[in-house]
């Protein structure tokens, strides 16, 4: 794999990102209702002139296309603009909120791997047995239960049976690592469960697939120990699709975090995104979506890179 390949991939992703900026920009403006409507609410005290003045102050009086280029121009200079509702710097907002969502995402992925891969392996090894079927049912439930439902169940259960368990009240890891982990336990477990179900299924299928291949039979007949065959040979080859799914899910986590952060009162990016959409705070919405898109592009690149490590046959040229 060469350096030039990466450069090419990065250059190729620029048109993707540009296209996304345009779509996001237009989408948020196509939705009826704008920030001025939200400010006025149903209790209008403002005069016609004041309202027009507001549109002018926000730069919303200009034609769409010039609004887009003004935004793009400031993006290129690294300026994400300010929130229309509070006047805060959008870049500052992102920096404030990012650690929460990042921690939530990483812990969720951790949970999903810890739960998903072993269960998937067991399921594959005990194919079509009572154990396999039970795991499949659990996986199906996990896959089809919405996070807001599971989250609510956890909140209610924990508040009932564990009197001293703190569910709410975010503190940063640096401030109080133990409390921080306690606060993140339920939300990341809830989110992790959803993804665990996906990882479980893909692990099962891909393990069954590998275990039925000839090289596994050869390894067995060579007299290798069962564990060695499973972990060193079959599992390693089964990993490629598992990593793909995990990587894609990491992107989806940003979506899941919108619901979970609201439910568990965590001050992350998902919460900020929902709030900004509700208030039509265009610069904030645009910045967050743009950020997520860039993260997903980078993730895809990383996944490709990891393939080359796991499977030397893969050549990224």
């Amino acid at each position: 794999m060469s350096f030039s390949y990466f450069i090419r991939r990065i250059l190729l992703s620029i048109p993707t990102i540009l296209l996304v900026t345009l779509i996001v920009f237009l989408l948020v403006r196509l939705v009826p209702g704008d920030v001025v409507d939200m400010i006025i609410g149903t209790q209008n005290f403002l005069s016609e002139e004041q309202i027009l003045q507001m549109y002018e102050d926000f730069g919303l009086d200009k034609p769409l296309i010039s609004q887009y280029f003004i935004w793009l121009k400031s993006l290129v200079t690294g300026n994400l603009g300010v929130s229309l509702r509070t006047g805060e710097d959008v870049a500052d907002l992102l920096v404030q909120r990012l650690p929460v969502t990042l921690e939530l995402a990483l812990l969720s992925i951790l949970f999903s791997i810890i739960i998903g891969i072993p269960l998937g392996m067991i399921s594959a090894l005990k194919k079509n047995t009572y154990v396999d079927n039970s795991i499949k049912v659990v996986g199906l439930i996990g896959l089809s239960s919405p996070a807001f439902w599971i989250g609510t169940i956890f909140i209610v259960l924990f508040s009932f049976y564990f009197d001293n368990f703190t569910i709410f009240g975010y503190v940063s890891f640096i401030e109080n690592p133990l409390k921080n982990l306690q606060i993140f336990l339920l939300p990341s477990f809830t989110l992790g469960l959803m993804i665990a179900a996906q990882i479980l299924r893909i692990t099962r299928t891909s393990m069954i697939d590998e275990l039925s291949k000839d090289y596994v039979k050869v390894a067995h007949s060579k007299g290798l120990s069962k564990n060695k065959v499973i972990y060193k040979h079959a599992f390693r080859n089964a990993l490629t699709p598992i990593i793909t799914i995990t990587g894609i899910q990491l992107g989806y986590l940003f979506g899941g975090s919108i619901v979970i952060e609201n439910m568990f009162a965590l001050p992350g990016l998902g919460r900020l995104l929902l709030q900004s959409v509700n208030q039509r705070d265009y610069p904030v919405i645009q910045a967050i979506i743009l950020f997520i898109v860039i993260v997903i592009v980078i993730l895809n690149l990383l996944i490709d890179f990891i393939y080359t490590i796991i499977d030397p046959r893969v050549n990224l040229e």
Partner: protein
Amino acid sequence: MKKIFVVLSVLTLVIFGFSQQNGGVLQIGIETEPVGFDPNLVTAFASFRILENVYDGLLKYDENMNLVPNIAEKYEVPDPNTIIFTIRDNVYFHNGEKLTIEDVLYTFERIMDEEVGSPAAAYYSEVESIEVLDSKRIQFKLKVPMANTLLINFASTNSAIVSKEFVETGNNLQLKTNGTGPFFMSEYVPGDHITLEKNSNYFIPNQPYLDKIIFRIMPEEISRVTALRNGDVDLIEIKEPLSLRSLQSNNYKVYRQPALSYYLLGFNTTREPLNNPRVRSALSLAIDREEIINMVAFGEGTITGPMNPTVQPWTITPENFEEYEYNPEKAKSILAEVGYPNGFEFNIMTASRYSFDKIAQVIQSQLSKIGVKVNIELVEWGIFLNRWGGSDFDSFISLNSGSIDPDVQFYRTFHSNGSTNVFLYNNSIVDKLLEEGRKEPNVVERIKIYNQLQNILVKEAPILFLYSPNVLYASQSYVEGFKPLANESLIFLRETRIEE
């Protein structure tokens, strides 16, 4: 003599201090996040809830919604065109600077400045001049004799006094606060919490009692209720009366206060057949308000006429209106008389917030009994506001904030030029009454005008006034002195304390 006085005052202070059980931290779970902190500019409900504890106006409300002095130690209305405020001498901003009469003047000039864009500017549009009389007194001269009507605006957080020096040195009040209130804002972590700390220089001795208040932003009701049950917070806002069922225990206190705000079914009075007042008042007869309160709010509400039933001396209570009787048969016969013997069909626009959608569903089922078919249009809030502003609806369910003054309650809503008259209601008699009521200095005459107006509004029914919900809060049993107000203000946090 002087020594004895000092000793005595120290003693009283010590005794008083102990008996008041000062101190402690109160954590409150609130639903929505504030949007900006400039008291003269904010419009978001959640911003008011924070700022009313950080800033002070010249006047404020007591627990029964009467106007009482605040930064002003007294106010006089020598004639209906003049208001004179005398300010206290011991008020300091949180940065240590003393509040002067210049700050008061500057605040109102700022509010009335078109460039600033304050939502309060409209209140003061009839102010002719503001004049500083001496270092303690300021005089407002009005173009029309409406001094008594104008007074309540001085208790609004939008009219809170800001520091001239602080604003002019370039501080952005939307981001930084510097008030005179019982608490100062020490921390704001967006999306998470706001911390207020005790202002030990507050101009009312011994207040506030709490050392610190932490407002935790928890958008989900279930999260707030659980956090209370779990002991993570001490006080929560309740939006869904059903939650009260899980708090029925001596460990919790429930606070309920009938709100001034009211639910309404508003009509587009220009669309067939809702442009006919008789059709609209027939709908009033076919709607069982009691049932709506029971089904939607589990009984946590009060049927209301055009003015909230608690607001004296202005209100006409609902039992005095014949249109408030639940009488579907009569409704049906009226519809037959005006040409709709088989009923008709119309849309109600709603959003899924504050139970709008649930109210629409109950009304839909009630009106089906007189053959009127209701289609519910459930839209997102931003879309709702957009269509609301453009009068793009047959009818809609909403919640209007109420007032203790009939001019504030009615003018902008029902005057043909009113800023929130999205019903396109146009009645020259109503316009005339509203204009007269605003200028009438004599209370008895004013009551007559607004009685006539309320009767017309119910008869013509450009909107149907449905009910006023209860403001609901719940706390741990050790929280003392908290009172929610009818305008949903949290101003009583300054008298709240934590019992051991």
